């Protein structure tokens, strides 16, 4: 299987995000700007038109995410700031986000519904940000405890009230992120049980290396994360409200990469049974689940998707 099309847009691409209809892509390179290209299906990648330049940050824009429903872009940067960009009259306007961070921001991700976003940082904390209508800005609630080192990435559970964070202190943690007034009370109680506090760490998993990324399956019943010791680890069986499975987790299933392969930096669940991940080997890897007895699933490495390019180390989107 070969890549469908590829072309040099710039020397390095740090982060990217597609809009809902996949007609536009926002790219962050080593300059401090975000470029929005028109990704037309007919033209070759090298002929994509540059539509907008989002210029506001002072340092690397480390992450870009595009909310499909509300059409808002969130960008966060090593200069401790984040902005939410909204499109009006064919131009993108930045909106201030009060992050209260004193170190770089590393990853920004919209929640599935699009009313909140999470930003991880080198300040060993995660910010959950939501919109405050009165002043028309985005405010944040910080999850300050528990992390002992830089939080490398974050991923939202489909319920909109849980996140998994991966940290360079070798641990992967799941936190509650319900915000009063933003999240619907009944669904919060359904997913987290009554009396759940904001920013509560439901469980932590220890691994043998920095944990680069974590992802939930589309139904939220499986959690997977990749570690620097060249493995991908899976936890299945996360059915029902979080307080029920947080206490008795199934044992972690570890799948090692084939001999000589390098660590994986980013991953995506294609379906509840299929995971694609890519990293320093410059090719995507496929992992598949197969159901053994009853509901016990086992994961295994399935395939490596075709020749690597000449680029340097792989990076997350």
């Amino acid at each position, binding site marked *: 299987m070969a890549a469908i099309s590829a072309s040099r847009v710039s020397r390095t691409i740090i982060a990217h995000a597609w809009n809902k209809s996949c007609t536009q892509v926002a790219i962050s390179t080593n300059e401090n700007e975000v470029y929005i290209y028109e990704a037309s299906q007919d033209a070759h990648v090298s002929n994509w038109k540059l539509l907008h330049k989002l210029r506001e940050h002072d340092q690397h824009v480390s992450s870009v995410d595009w909310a499909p429903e509300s059409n808002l872009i969130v960008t966060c940067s090593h200069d401790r700031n984040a902005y939410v960009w909204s499109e009006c009259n064919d131009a993108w306007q930045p909106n201030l986000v009060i992050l209260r961070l004193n170190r*770089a921001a590393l990853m920004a991700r919209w929640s599935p519904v699009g009313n909140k976003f999470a930003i991880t940082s*080198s*300040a060993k904390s995660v910010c959950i940000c939501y919109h405050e209508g009165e002043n028309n800005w985005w405010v944040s609630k910080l999850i300050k405890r528990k992390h002992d080192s830089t939080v490398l990435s974050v991923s939202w559970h489909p319920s909109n009230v849980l996140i998994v964070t991966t940290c360079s202190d070798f641990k992967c943690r799941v936190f509650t992120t319900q915000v009063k007034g933003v999240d619907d009370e009944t669904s919060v109680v359904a997913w987290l049980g009554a009396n759940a506090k904001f920013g509560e760490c439901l469980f932590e998993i220890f691994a043998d290396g920095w944990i680069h990324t974590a992802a939930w399956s589309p139904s939220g019943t499986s959690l997977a994360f990749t570690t620097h010791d060249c493995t991908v680890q899976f936890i299945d069986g996360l059915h029902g409200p979080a307080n029920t499975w947080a206490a008795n987790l199934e044992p972690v299933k570890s799948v090692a990469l084939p001999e000589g392969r*390098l660590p994986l930096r980013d991953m995506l669940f294609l379906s509840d049974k299929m995971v694609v991940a890519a990293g320093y080997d410059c090719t995507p890897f496929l992992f598949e689940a197969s159901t053994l007895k009853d509901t016990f699933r086992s994961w295994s490495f399935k395939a490596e998707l075709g020749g690597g390019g000449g680029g*340097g*180390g792989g990076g997350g989107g």
Partner: protein
Amino acid sequence: MATSKQPYYDQMRKALNLALCIQNFPCQMVERHNKPEIEFKDSPELILNPVLITRNENERCLIEGSINSARINIRVKQADELEEILCRQFMRFLAQRAEAFQVLRRVPVEGYDISFLVTHAHVEDMIKSKVVEFIVQFMEDIDREINEQKLSVSSRGRVVATDYLKQFL
């Protein structure tokens, strides 16, 4: 002679490939800074265990990795005093021109003859496999250079001595 060093270089390549799995990582300690963590070592969780590859007691390679940088320290074979002097002069010559090499460190680490510092910026700019190749090739070239220089020093010494002593014949 080069063939007997092959396993040494192969091991180095493997260890380098893994050590150079680095990423852009802003400093946790100081805001708005982005420093090679291996040089400062202020957060132990960000530093990998160092890998030491030894060919014999005289030739070693220490590869120290971290989350955003890797330091490669090499001790070159120096069998006798002449080789020691040649090695020291040659390494100093190269280290003083470290800007041209980009990945070279100006001062070698204590106990080693030459050190490389590779940061995420280098790996983003240049192809990682080529950086690994460069370092291994560098080592092979150093050995060859020192051998050639030793030969040329000896032959020049012989020529000079013959010429000088001719007057006493």
